[in-house]
């Protein structure tokens, strides 16, 4: 006879909430990049509204975790699962915040022609979204290989970020009129780069949940000798 049905039910419920939050976060990245590409103010506003939904869900999940800790005295794997949930909802919430940050800049730039065609930023967004998607999949399947893959991908996003920064700096050097928008794009690139960092964190917490060891895996996967920031000549 298996015991503690009520606790297991609570953990299943938590699991479903995390999946729901993850899919909302992925949707927010998709929508914010679509809005940026199409200069669609209405869509950008929708990203804002959805951010409130994600914030509320974070609070609900947090409350459920606290409740499970207070009432069920979780230990071992159960304790790690609930701790992991508490940590990854913060990362997911931050990712959604960055989607909203990008949406805010999209609204600001809605009525002006972009200084450059958007190629690398959507590419970066796609990579970041895939990382978020995989990190949540890794959580759902408790798949540490997939989680490690996410952490390893962080370098690709960082490389794209550096490339974009370099390009924007060159634009600014050649055209002082473009400075304002170039800075906005630089922020957007930075937000995307942070999204990938948060996905990496989620991957690390998945590994912790399965193994009990919490390492900064992104560091382990860092390419040797890579520069953290481009030198502009």
């Amino acid at each position, binding site marked *: *006879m298996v*015991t*503690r*049905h*009520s*606790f297991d039910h609570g953990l299943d419920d938590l699991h479903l909430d995390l999946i729901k939050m993850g899919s909302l976060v992925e949707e927010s990245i998709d929508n914010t990049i679509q809005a940026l590409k199409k200069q669609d103010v209405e869509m950008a506003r929708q990203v804002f509204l959805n951010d409130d939904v994600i914030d509320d869900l974070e609070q609900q999940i947090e409350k459920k975790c*606290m*409740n499970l800790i*207070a*009432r*069920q*005295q979780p230990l071992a794997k159960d304790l790690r699962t609930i701790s992991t949930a508490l940590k990854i909802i913060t990362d997911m919430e931050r990712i959604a915040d960055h989607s909203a940050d990008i949406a805010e800049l999209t609204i600001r730039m809605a009525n002006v022609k972009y200084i450059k065609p958007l190629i690398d930023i959507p590419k970066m967004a796609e990579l970041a979204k895939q990382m978020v998607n995989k990190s949540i999949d890794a959580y759902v399947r408790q798949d540490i290989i997939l989680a490690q893959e996410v952490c390893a991908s962080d370098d690709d996003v960082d490389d794209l970020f550096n490339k974009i920064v370099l390009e924007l700096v060159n634009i600014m050097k050649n055209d002082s009129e473009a400075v304002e928008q170039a800075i906005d794009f630089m922020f957007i690139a930075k937000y995307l780069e942070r999204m990938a960092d948060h996905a990496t964190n989620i991957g690390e917490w998945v590994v912790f949940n399965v193994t009990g060891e919490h390492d900064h895996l992104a560091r382990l996967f860092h390419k040797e000798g890579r520069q953290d920031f481009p030198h502009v000549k």
Partner: protein
Amino acid sequence: MTDGKLKIKTDNLNLFYSDIQALKNVTVDIREREVTALIGPSGCGKSTFIKTLNRMNDLVSSVRITGDVYLDDLNIYREYDIVDLRKRVGMVFQKPNPFPMSIYDNVAYGPRIHGVKSKSQLNEIVEESLKSAALWDEVKDRLKQNALGLSGGQQQRLCIARVLAVEPEVVLMDEPTSALDPISTLKIEDLIDELKEKYTIVIVTHNMQQAGRISDRTAFFLHGEVVEFDFTENIFSKPSDKRTEDYITGRFG
């Protein structure tokens, strides 16, 4: 969580053992199909309180009670036949106390007293009660064996089945797992979680964690008073009274 229908209400209940006051102005609302846990240190009045809910204290000659206890709006100290009351409000005790007779007869005992004679009806009641108490699969092939041969955890589930056999509305449990090992305890806890779909349950427990795990609301008793009565998640995550906080965090005294 929303408030369910009120099942039991105590209003300014005071209880004295001769000159000693064991309960002081206890006013508590117990909701239908919820698990209400009563916690507090030894001597705080929680067991005394639970016994007032089916008038078990009537058996103690020195007891004097003032105030009211209502079951579905009827005052149980004035308007109830005590046999009918104890049929509607059953009780499970700390130590499993099966009668020295067969498993079958233990469960059939109550229905027989209440006039059920048909063999097929009794068979049905015994089977249903044992299933509800999550014991049927373990005993169905030895119903005629003596109940004293069961393990402690099985005996306690048998006692629960015996209570369920008379179709009560409320089940009172006075530390039902304190004599059981951890696995048997968890089985009873799971059972309580299932039973609350049909029954209103009031449980006294020394084990605070158990109250946290199984109850919807918790009352903290101290020196015969209810210090705090709230949803269990509130009691265990943000109690409003410092004495509750001290007790549940082990800083009491």
